[in-house]
């Protein structure tokens, strides 16, 4: 039971990082990326390779994963600079599809469909360490950074770009640089989550980085409330505890849990968008058709 709860808590922390970083670009910069799992995956492979080839140091793995995911985030930043709204959603979907194919095919780097197995247990400066405390610390850091950036001038710059890009530019803001930075920060964070995930499960393959996961993280952000500090975290807790909770209900046959879960997700999303379009902790006046 302790192991089960510890596993759930680690998953919550890892997906919390994913949701918080995605929220940073969705909620503040208005960049609706359906490719966050790509950078999660890049970080996971990078972290796993460091652990397999070099040393399973958790900090080193996270830093390397952040550098790889942040560096390759230009793949996402470039379309974000050219197109907005639904056009960007389509572009990010394309990126997601290309990435999944590459993850499955680039055997030397990703292990192909079989993935990377036997990732050693994590250490910190040579001492064995659990992933949970590190993941919680990383989550706290990400939330702190998000709060600081969002409240300060950078958050204002991003919100200004989201609300009126041309006006922000006319006031001397280098829109391209600000968007690139925001995307880089968010993707580096996703990379850290990926490295933690790889060290936690000691096995990674492409199935954890598909579009389904990108959509799941997006759902966490939207259900919790975009552009809020705690919303994405609340969305993460709800969406991850739901399957765990359902499995405990005696009157649902285990074989039907998956289907019931999908129906509940769908219903919750639809009802939420009707009654609280800005999410559970979002600003009530936002997103309504009449606003």
């Amino acid at each position: 039971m302790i192991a089960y709860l510890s596993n759930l808590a680690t998953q919550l922390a890892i997906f919390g990082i994913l949701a918080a970083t995605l929220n940073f670009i969705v909620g503040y910069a208005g960049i609706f990326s359906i490719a966050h799992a790509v950078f999660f995956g890049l970080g996971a492979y990078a972290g796993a390779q460091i652990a397999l080839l070099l040393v399973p140091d958790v900090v080193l793995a996270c830093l390397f994963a952040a550098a790889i995911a942040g560096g390759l985030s230009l793949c996402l930043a470039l379309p974000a600079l050219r197109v907005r709204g639904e056009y960007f959603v389509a572009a990010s979907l394309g990126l997601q599809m290309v990435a999944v194919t590459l993850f499955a095919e680039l055997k030397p780097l990703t292990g192909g469909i079989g993935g990377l197995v036997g990732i050693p247990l994590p250490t910190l400066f040579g001492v064995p360490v659990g992933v949970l405390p590190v993941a919680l610390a990383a989550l706290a850091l990400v939330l702190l950074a998000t709060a600081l950036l969002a409240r300060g001038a950078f958050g204002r710059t991003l919100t200004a770009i989201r609300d009126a890009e041309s006006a922000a530019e006319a006031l001397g803001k280098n829109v391209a640089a600000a968007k690139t930075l925001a995307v880089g920060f968010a993707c580096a964070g996703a990379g850290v989550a990926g490295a933690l995930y790889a060290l936690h499960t000691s096995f990674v393959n492409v199935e954890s980085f598909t579009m389904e996961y990108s959509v799941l993280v997006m759902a966490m952000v939207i259900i919790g409330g975009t552009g809020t500090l705690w919303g994405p975290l609340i969305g993460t807790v709800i969406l991850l505890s739901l399957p765990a909770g359902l499995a405990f209900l005696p009157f649902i046959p285990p074989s039907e849990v998956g289907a019931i879960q999908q129906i509940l997700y769908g219903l919750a999303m639809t009802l939420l968008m009707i009654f609280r379009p800005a999410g559970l902790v979002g600003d009530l006046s936002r997103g309504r058709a009449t606003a």
Partner: protein
Amino acid sequence: MSAAREDAPLRCEGLARSFGGLQAVAGVSLALPAGQVTALVGPNGAGKTTLFNLITGNLRADAGAAWVRGRPITGLKPWQVARLGVARSFQDLRLFTHMTVRDNVLAATERSAWFWQPGGAAGRKRRQAAAEAALEATGLAALAGARAIDLAYAERKFLSLARILAAEADIWLLDEPASGLDPASRTRFAELLRAATGRGVAICLIEHNLDVVAELSDRIAFLDQGRVIAEGDPRSILRDPALAAIYFGDRHEPATAAAETTA
């Protein structure tokens, strides 16, 4: 070309731009002198807003060039032009709708796209002071905490102006800043412009209401079909019957125009 024109904070020569077969701006040369309000007047479609877009880099010019204090700005991006001290407003305002009034104005003072702004605590204090001064001057101080989207029409127009004030630019390009303002707001607006020109700001404004033009402007440039067809002091331009005929739309074949209105 006169020496005054060379010295103007902003000047353009032969700016031209066409869209498909339509020549929107056909070789406009104009100088905005410091401390003066130049009104850009002309019928809809004369190329006034397009001219603004060519100067600010929102549109690329097919021909011609523009200078800010002698420095060529042709080919620069809008944010680079803005950083040389050119501020503009938009006809549709483009406020940061979900931000507070204060944040709208503060955002205008923060130009760095990096994670933090230069200048440390002193810089932040200076930017805050500039923002508060702009709010005070535009009468928005009491509404500083309200969101831009919740403001009334005139307040939105003043917020658009407050952003420009806070940006501390010395060249202002204002696209219909006074349209729809009631007389009291218009007076307040006129005072703001006078205070700015008193500091040496060069202002160019697009305006359709000729009473407002007469009241506010020191010079008029009359645009028609992408060309400046007359330039001078407001009295002589506004009294020119030929220009009035163009402006009020009864040139070329008055019979056709009449037929169109009855159709």
